């Protein structure tokens, strides 16, 4: 009786039900139920997320999902952030834009991460999508302010333009004047990455003034302190604000004016920017501190009395990014003032200095973990660590989902016991059962990987450097981490054995990056041969890998699953191992 009822729903009822299902995972599950559901679902999917732009071709995506309004694409491997991926590797968005220009005239949103975006791509976007609303370029490169001018001029209903952390060829600040006077739709504008010393400030002021829904505005370093008060007064509805330069030699009444401007922003919850901070101007922020949930001081070279003064006034703080000038004492103040803290990132002020110049140690992190039990996400750069500290952190913060520790000197042992930090990280994975992301550092043996393989069942991304003793380490991870999607490894003594023994695992993951390890060219060839659904790409900038014996280790390789076969836009230093054991180029 019940079976009959299910099949008698008309298609549009099913479609209506599906419209409540937003998450990709659920949508994928829905589409796997039966052919009918697959068909209905694919016609009504509006949002597509593609974690690796080479995992599938644009045509295949368009064929399956003909009515997409929003797309998110990621390009280069994560280690590209640290200059490990040579220039020209790939991640070009233009082929996608070209295909979508024809197939998705109603496309509204494009979000890209680590991709190469040219002015031509931007111009094509501006021309092709009449209802375009959202452009987010996260850590992208390859475009200039000319491309931005095209977007400003062409997208009549633009709501979001977010260039966070991208590298833009900054030819002139005049692109801002290309926003027509009729543009009033902006909700979010992030130009913090722009370097140009001349920003068309009057155009910016007018733009801000005529967009009543502007909630998020992040300025770049070129905007000086004296201009901020004017901007804030035109946008008192702002929720998220990034200052430009925070230094000035101006008279004291600027401080009063600034303080007044900040206090008129009753909705302000998030602050960032603060380049070149002059401490004397920080009190201007005091009126908003009690409402702040997010504070990014990671560009602010202010020292301790000032940092503590600021942080102690922010009891609602959930997210703090800061330089190690905060020191252990500042972290203590943080732990006692900010009980709602969920995310902490501490960056090194002097990453290449060698000797620590600031008193930031493992103790600071321990203190925060004890005082802020809601912590979920930690990124911490420091010079020393102990197993005991890690155990305390693990036990105090069982809700951690992201834990990234960078002990600056590679292979640094527990400074008290001189032992490896295996036990400490073991405690992290054992106690933090929802851990999704982990970055290791310090002196580590194969044992830490045994712990990870045993306990880190929800781990999705693992970053490893200068760790382990043998293939057994890699084997533990590939064998034990059921949820693993992304694995990136550098400078570890991992070779062929573990990789080949766990080849099938690689098809369940998005990607594997290995560099400066001991995996041989022969093993890469074998993988390419045996696993047709994987793209095995060897990166060698000096010479073709087959000019050396097969037992020679490869410099770098990147393996990822793909339904669309090898890519065609490879640069000269990338070789694909194909099914016939040939290297394709």
């Amino acid at each position: 009786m019940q079976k009959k009822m299910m099949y008698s729903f008309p298609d549009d009822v099913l479609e209506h039900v599906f419209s409540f299902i937003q998450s990709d995972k659920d949508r994928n599950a829905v589409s796997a139920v039966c052919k009918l559901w697959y068909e209905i679902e694919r016609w009504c999917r509006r949002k597509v997320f593609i974690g690796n732009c080479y995992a599938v071709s644009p045509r295949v995506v368009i064929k399956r999902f003909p009515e997409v309004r929003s797309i998110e694409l990621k390009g280069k491997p994560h280690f590209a952030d640290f200059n490990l991926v040579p220039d020209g590797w790939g991640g070009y968005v233009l082929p996608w834009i070209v295909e979508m220009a024809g197939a998705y005239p109603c496309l509204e949103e494009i979000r890209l991460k680590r991709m190469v975006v040219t002015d031509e791509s931007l111009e094509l976007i501006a021309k092709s999508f009449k209802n375009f609303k959202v452009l987010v370029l996260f850590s992208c490169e390859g475009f200039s302010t000319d491309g931005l001018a095209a977007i400003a001029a062409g997208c009549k209903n633009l709501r979001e333009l977010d260039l966070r952390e991208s590298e833009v060829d900054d030819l002139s600040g005049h692109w801002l004047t290309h926003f027509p006077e009729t543009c009033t739709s902006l909700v979010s504008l992030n130009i913090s990455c722009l370097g140009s010393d001349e920003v068309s400030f009057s155009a910016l002021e007018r733009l801000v003034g005529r967009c009543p829904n502007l909630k998020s505005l992040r300025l770049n370093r070129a905007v000086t302190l004296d201009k901020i008060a004017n901007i804030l007064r035109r946008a008192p509805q702002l929720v998220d604000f990034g200052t430009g330069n925070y230094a000035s030699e101006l008279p004291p009444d600027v401080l009063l004016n600034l303080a007044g401007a900040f206090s008129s922003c009753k909705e302000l919850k998030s602050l960032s920017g603060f380049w070149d901070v002059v401490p004397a101007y920080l009190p201007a922020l005091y009126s908003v501190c009690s409402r702040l949930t997010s504070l990014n001081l990671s560009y602010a070279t202010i020292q301790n009395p000032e940092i503590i003064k600021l942080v102690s006034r922010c009891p609602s703080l959930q997210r703090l990014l800061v330089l190690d000038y905060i020191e252990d004492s500042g972290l203590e103040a943080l732990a006692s003032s900010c009980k709602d803290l969920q995310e902490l990132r501490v960056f090194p002020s002097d990453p290449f200095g060698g000797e620590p110049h600031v008193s930031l140690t493992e103790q600071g992190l321990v203190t925060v973990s004890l005082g802020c039990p809601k912590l979920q996400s930690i990124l911490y750069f420091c010079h020393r660590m102990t197993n005991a500290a890690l155990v305390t952190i693990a036990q105090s913060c069982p809700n951690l989902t992201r834990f990234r520790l960078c002990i600056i000197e590679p292979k640094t042992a527990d400074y008290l016991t001189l032992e490896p930090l295996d036990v400490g990280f073991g405690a992290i994975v054992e106690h933090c059962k929802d851990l999704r992301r982990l970055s290791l550092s310090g002196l580590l043996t194969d044992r830490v990987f045994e712990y990870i393989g045993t306990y880190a069942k929800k781990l999705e991304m693992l970053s490893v450097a200068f760790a382990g003793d043998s293939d057994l380490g890699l084997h533990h991870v590939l064998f034990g981490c059921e949820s693993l999607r992304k694995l990136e490894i550098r400078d570890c003594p991992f070779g062929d054995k573990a990789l080949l023994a766990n080849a099938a695992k690689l098809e369940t993951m998005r990607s594997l990056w290995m560099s400066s390890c001991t995996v041989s060219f022969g093993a890469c060839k074998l993988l390419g041969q045996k696993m047709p659904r994987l793209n095995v790409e060897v990166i060698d900038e000096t010479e073709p890998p087959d000019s050396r014996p097969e037992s020679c280790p490869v410099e770098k390789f990147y393996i990822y699953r793909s339904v669309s076969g090898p890519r065609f836009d490879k640069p000269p230093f990338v070789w694909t191992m194909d099914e016939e054991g040939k290297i394709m180029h």
Partner: protein
Amino acid sequence: MEGRVAYENDLNLKATELRLGLPGTHEEQQAVSSRVGNNKRPNDESDDQNETAPPPKAQIVGWPPIRSYRKNNYQPKKTESDGGGIYIKLSMDGAPYLRKIDLKVYSGYPELLKAVENMFKFNIGEYSEREGYKGSDYAPTYEDKDGDWMLVGDVPWGMFITSCKRLRIMKGSEARGLGCGV
């Protein structure tokens, strides 16, 4: 007196050696490499080599893992067209010779003062607007454009580097006089 102290361990010829390079760094130009050979133990601070400054580490590509835009942001506008540094003389009461430093290399007072502390191996003490530098016998001072001796730290950094003509680390009663509510 100071001379004898300096010669305690060895002739310390390095300190008086003429060479190019930023004060406080050592000469070896170490090659960029993507591998690190050392299994350096954490407490082994190579004190057996010298007391003046640690050798610059061999730069490992991509380590520590920090995005390049973050590295660039620590030195404000150093790469811009003005070129040329702001070189000023730095003296310390009781030291046998002066140093020359480039103020443009530092992004703010904390960096400058730490570098000066390292150069002459002493502690400067904690700065507060009201009381100057507490907790040490030394006070960092500078001669400004008008020829007046000022306490380092009172004015915004940008103003300081354009008006500073020379730096002097004062010691003893002279220093304490400057610190107290002047």
